[in-house]
């Protein structure tokens, strides 16, 4: 019993030291109060896998993106990186820019999230040649 308690406390301590940005919330795939909750990493991994499909089609990209934006969270940069690469495979620059706009809009009043995301995505953006909405000037009405 003591060993079990120790095990629980050790795993608890481990999860605390994983420094999470506060903005990506954990979302269960189904809303049970019982049953295993999907962790943030599982959620992220699931979405990265979705967008990383080599022969993803335009519908799947749209569906994935619209669903992801429907969640109460700002997607992690690694999910967005996979989505932007999917746009590249589909030769769709406009959607790539739109995704960045949607992320900024999703952050709402938390103005520090979008610059962080862009900073994390900078390697991907320069590699693929995707401009930010600010660079194009379409972030102003």
């Amino acid at each position, binding site marked *: 019993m003591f060993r079990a308690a120790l095990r629980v406390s050790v795993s608890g301590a481990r999860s605390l030291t994983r420094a999470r940005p506060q903005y990506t919330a954990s979302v269960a795939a189904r809303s049970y109060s019982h049953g295993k909750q999907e962790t943030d990493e599982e959620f992220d991994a699931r979405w990265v896998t979705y967008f990383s499909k080599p022969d993803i089609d335009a519908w799947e990209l749209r569906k994935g993106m619209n669903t992801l934006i429907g969640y109460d969270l700002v997607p992690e940069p690694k999910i967005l990186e996979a989505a932007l690469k999917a746009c*590249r495979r589909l030769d769709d620059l406009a959607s790539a820019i*739109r995704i960045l*706009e949607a992320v900024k*809009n999703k952050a709402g009043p938390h103005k520090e999230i979008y610059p962080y995301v862009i900073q994390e995505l900078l390697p991907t953006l320069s590699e693929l*040649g995707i*401009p930010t909405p600010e660079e*194009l000037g379409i972030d102003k009405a």
Partner: protein
Amino acid sequence: MLATRALRLVGKRALSTSICLRGGHGVAKVEDYTLPAYFDRRENPLPDIKFVQQLSPEQKSLKEKEKGSWAVLSKEEKIALYRISFKESFAEMEKGTGEWKSVVAGIFFFIGFTGLVVLWQRKYVYGDVPHTFDPEYKQKELQRMLDMRINPVEGFSAKWDYENNAWKK
């Protein structure tokens, strides 16, 4: 026996799965509202269809160029590609209309108009006020109230100086 005869009949008629035959009159007209629509919504960032459906030759060649490296596209070309797919950017779709200014202006206008109506009414509709509003009558009323010692402790008559026949300073 009957079933097989019925099946043979069905087999003779070529049932097309893609065309809708309406009582043998031909193909049903596809209504606009049944097709996927374009709309700008923040909760649906990637609409079902592109905004511009019929591309001009320049747009077509730009779309071909999009298949290559995006780094070689100029800023204008990138904006043009965006505008082919989308009508309004997020900033444009989210901005306010300024309609509230018209609403407030309308409110003030109608309040002002009502004021004019009230003034007109005072002049042309209402008759004289009763004689009890005349200054002389009012004075007599005031004197009566003081004589009656209305509210002598804290109110009306308490403020009147009976010695000097004036209001207390």
